[in-house]
């Protein structure tokens, strides 16, 4: 469970995040939806403890990352905005490195890889060096790396970027499996269909502020239109778009 309250962050002259409040519950998929530059990535970076908020509170399973960053990171699996791999290591070695950094033994890492690989169709890639992987292949390895320690909370920043249709479908399947096993899944996207296809909850962010939040049905009702995309455009275009 991830709870975020009145987050704010400024980089120099740019107020990246103004006022973001939402809650991502366990066993649900929460989508952070917004146009480019809305403050989604900065919000996720603050949740993952990589950026310190100027104001506001974060809670991850009741832990305050500002006070206990390591404990908070323990409970997160993060697919960050940057998702570089080590080109001279194989996919398996890349994933295992993160497993070891999280204190997992060899057996648990092997078991985790064996469990994740079929979901993401990683099998044939595992023992190849990641140099020369396609963008989609790299993304899959990065997602596997984020999930190797079976985290309670999964944070994915634009996870479908660069994936082809088939990979996108297998990723959606993997996210549904995570939800079924009771995890808290929070992901960001600027693609309406993506969010519509997966999310139980939608948080629409624009200009660093939450402009709407709720179930897809509630969002539609609030915007006063049947089409989610139309609702998104109307709501996201509303206040504080100063960029």
């Amino acid at each position: 469970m991830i709870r975020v309250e009145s987050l704010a962050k400024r980089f120099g002259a740019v107020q990246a995040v103004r006022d973001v409040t939402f809650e991502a519950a366990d066993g649900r998929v929460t989508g952070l939806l917004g146009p480019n530059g809305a403050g989604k990535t900065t919000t996720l970076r603050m949740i993952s403890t990589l950026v310190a908020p100027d104001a506001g509170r974060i809670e991850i399973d009741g832990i305050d990352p500002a006070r206990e960053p390591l404990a908070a990171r323990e409970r997160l699996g993060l697919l960050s905005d940057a998702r570089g791999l080590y080109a001279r290591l194989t996919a398996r070695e890349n994933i295992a490195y993160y497993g070891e950094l999280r204190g997992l033994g060899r057996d648990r890492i092997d078991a985790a890889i064996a469990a994740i690989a079929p979901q993401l169709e990683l099998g044939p890639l595992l023992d190849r060096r990641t140099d020369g992987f396609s963008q989609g292949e790299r993304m899959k390895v990065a997602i596997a790396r984020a999930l190797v320690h079976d985290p309670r909370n999964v944070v994915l920043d634009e996870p479908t970027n660069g994936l082809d249709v088939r990979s996108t479908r297998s990723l959606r399947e993997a996210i549904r499996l995570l939800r079924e096993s009771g995890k808290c899944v929070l992901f960001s996207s600027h693609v309406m269909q993506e969010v519509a296809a997966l999310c139980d909850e939608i948080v629409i962010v624009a200009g660093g502020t939450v402009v709407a939040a709720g179930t897809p049905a509630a969002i539609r009702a609030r915007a006063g239109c049947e089409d989610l995309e139309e609702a998104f455009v109307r709501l996201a275009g509303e206040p504080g778009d100063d960029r």
Partner: protein
Amino acid sequence: MKPRLAVVFLKEIRDALRDRRTALMILVASVLTGPVTLILVASFVSGLEERASTLRVRIAGAENAPALVNFLERADVEIEKAPSDYLARVKEGALDAVIVVPEDFHERWLAHEEARVELVHDDSRTESGPATRQAERLLAAFNRETAYLRLMARGVSPSLNESTKVERVNTATPRQRGAVLLFLIPMFGILAPLLGGMTVAIDSTAGERERGSLEPLLANPVPARVFAIGKWLASWASATAVVTLTMAGFLAAARLYAEKRLPSLLNFGVPELAAFLAVIVPLAAFTSALQLLISTYGRSYREAQTYVSYLATVASFVPLVVMFSGAKEQGWQLAVPVLGQLMVLQRVLRGDGLSSADALVPAAVALVLAGLAVAAVARLLRDERIVFGRA
């Protein structure tokens, strides 16, 4: 469960071992640069001594100076007739020095008049120096003998002619001469860790940023200092490996080649190797940490490489400055990284004993500075501006 520090260290080492740049650098540093330079210098130097050690003079117009020829033959000197175009040959360096005897030499010599010879040489060629000085010495000896005999013939003590007798005592032991010539070994000793630690330092910091792997890495529940220390240790290990290989290369070259040609020049054996490593490995701790710190500021591998190469330039200037300024060794220099190591390494090569300060001060300074640099790296890794590029 492996300790996190070991996990970071081993990953960086594995990554580096698979890097072709590392392999190339190790090859260049250890196999080529050091030993090849050593062999070139050794053969150059031994060439110099060889030229001078066989006594040989070239004379143009030897038939005009039978007395001189007689003297030289008695002194077991090989006399060669100079070709007629000796002037041009000396100029182009084919001949080192030629004694030119004019036609009236013998007559004047017999008449006890001033008999001139010319010594033709080219001052601008250092390699002709020994042969020129040798010819000068032989002529001076001939002069002395002539004067001696003439004074004797007149019943005068020959010692009148020589109020001061100069005997040369060269205090430079052969070993010291070698150390002066082999200024190069300490210099390579200083440069080897810079070369050896560079790739890992850059790749594990600026490289991580460039690949976009730094952000997810730092999201792991591992304190930033563990990453800083692990990466530093990996780059130190790489530097140490290159230093060891370079020095072993010198040892091999000294054993196989230089010892036969010039035993006096190169006294670089296992004890010297051990002393070198004891001095350079702590220095490598510092240079690697500094490289890591500098590269952490680089947004790309290229950019970091540029910054780091400035460091190598500065470090390689130090030996040159010491060499050309003739700076006297002073205590405080021991505490200056690179300068202190250079001093101690030269003492090792000269065969001087090392005091405990020599051994400990440079190492202690290097390790303390390394610690500070690594702490600074850990700080930077927690800095948003570094992790996410310059905002």
